[in-house]
């Protein structure tokens, strides 16, 4: 196990290096002078020169990359073109909100996904099963930003139960969490159902039933425990899509999270902020995946021993 973890940690190194190269080259892949792009086409020569000097854009590319890498390793992503505030401050102020939103959406989708998936599998081919899988398919097929707009329309404008914008209070949090979590709930429900169906038909489940174990115990203790193993991988991947999907959700609900910071910075050509924020999300996602991989391995091992 320790060997596995160490090997996975080593595999992380080339991926993280690749991620930094990609994020670094964002600014340099674009045709033309990055300083001109940041300053705007009509900016005076002096402004362009100032940006070039500040970002060291005239140094050789590899020198620029290693400087970027060295700084990023110390959580220094440079400072914003707009207001000169360090990018790290921008990110740390917003990251907590996005993380909160993602974690809540995670809890929402895991709860509803598991519940619907288990009920569907246990009541296979009944009305409940079909209804829930139809709802799940809709959940998968809906753009989350449109779901958000519709929720605002109904629950904030028509009935005024919740607030249409912002983050922090219960009235503000409910709609964004549903918006972000619905697609994930649908995916987890479908995965749980098919995984449960695989397990339920196996001999040891029949044995448990034949022994006279109560049906509820069979489902929860025997079937679910083993059915969860593939579901966990899906849940891990979902967390990444929540971090990315929050870009749209935050835009719909005007939440000042990391996603909105990225969009605002893209629109204002504030590349250091865009780079820093995207780098942070990618690194968090890579680490979450590592944790999921290790968890999966641990769970699988226990199954092997049985």
């Amino acid at each position, binding site marked *: 196990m320790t060997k596995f973890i160490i090997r996975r940690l080593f595999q992380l190194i080339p991926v993280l290096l690749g991620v930094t190269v990609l994020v670094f080259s964002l600014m340099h892949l*674009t045709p033309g002078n990055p300083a001109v792009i940041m300053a705007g086409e009509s900016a005076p020569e002096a402004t362009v020169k100032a940006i070039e000097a500040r970002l060291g854009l005239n140094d050789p590319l590899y020198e620029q990359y290693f400087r970027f890498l060295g700084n990023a390793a110390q959580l220094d992503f440079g400072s914003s073109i707009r207001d000169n505030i360090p990018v790290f401050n921008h990110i740390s102020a917003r990251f907590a909100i996005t993380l909160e939103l993602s974690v809540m959406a995670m809890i929402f989708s895991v709860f509803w996904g598991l519940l619907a998936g288990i009920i569907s599998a246990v009541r296979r081919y009944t009305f409940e099963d079909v209804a829930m899988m139809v709802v799940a398919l809709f959940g998968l097929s*809906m753009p989350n930003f449109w779901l958000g707009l519709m929720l605002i329309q109904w629950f904030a404008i028509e009935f005024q139960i919740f607030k249409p914008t912002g983050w922090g209070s219960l009235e503000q949090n409910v709609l964004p969490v549903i918006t972000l979590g619905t697609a994930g709930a649908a995916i987890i429900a479908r995965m749980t159902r098919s995984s449960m169906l695989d397990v339920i038909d196996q001999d040891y489940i029949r044995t448990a039933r034949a022994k006279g174990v109560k049906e509820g115990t069979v489902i929860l203790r025997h079937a679910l425990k083993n059915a969860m193993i593939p579901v966990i991988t899906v849940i891990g*991947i979902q967390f990444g*899509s929540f971090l*990315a999907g929050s*870009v749209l959700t935050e*835009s719909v609900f005007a939440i000042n999270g990391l996603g909105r910071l990225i*969009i605002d910075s*893209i629109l204002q050509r504030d590349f250091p902020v865009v780079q820093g924020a995207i780098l942070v*999300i990618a690194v968090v996602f890579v680490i979450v995946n590592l944790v999921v991989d290790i968890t999966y391995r641990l769970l699988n091992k226990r199954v092997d021993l049985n």
Partner: protein
Amino acid sequence: MSNIQPSQVPATKPANRRLDNFKDFYKKLRKNKAALVGLYVLVFLFFVSIFGALDANYNILGVNSNATNLTDKLLGPSAQYWFGTDHLGRDIFYRVLHGMYITLGVGFAATFMAALVGVPIGLLAGYYGGWLDTVIMRLMDVLLAFPGILLALAIVSVLGGSTFNVTVAIAIGALPQFARIVRGSTLTTRKLEYIDAIRALGARDGKIIFQHILPNIMSPIIVNTTLFVATAILSAAGLSFLGLGVQPPTPEWGAMLNDGRNYMYQAAHITFFPGMMIVIVVLAFNLFGDGLRDALDPKAKK
């Protein structure tokens, strides 16, 4: 699919087998009512989208979908304007109709590009293995480190928003998915005995890969391609909604939603109809894709 030894295999046999396979596949697909509904909806929408693609000047069925009419702005659905009008008095029904080809076009084009590059990459990695495999899959891991639309977002932030750039950005984001699936299938197919036999007969690598491995792993590729069109459509609409994709006044559905969200208090219908259309198209692809998977690739589960 096999023309290795014409002397041993009667010429009619492979043709028959292929026909049988197709019949078998169609029989399975036909049993799946939901998948058929998805297919019919897609065929219908495809024909509708041709009307929009025919005229670049926003004329569709004799109506200019981009014609503004400020006296009729923000009107609700009526007999005259089926889906109502937007803030510039444009007829939303015709705009939605017109936008169909953009949505389908970007979805298909992005998926096609991703498959065109991703499938050969996966074949090479899976067939040759070794350092080539390691390098390719590590590169794919790097792309996979950017979840969801984040990679497309990053690419568009550099290239700027346009229909073509969005398509390319989404295609790049989808590369690892195609490469991984193809690599996995190639790995298992490569080890089969008949591949050894063909190699023993002296076939070149290129021939083995494209004539013998590729046809055998088409099922997962087709299923994945169909399901990915749905994802690509959602991503493209999302980027346009953020103002980073297809630019107004092109009647792309995501961009229309972005326009409409400023008028939610006065005119809810502007945000309703384009979104509903996205749901219908994506749902149709998902239904059809699920059906294809059940019929073609019964072992795969998701």
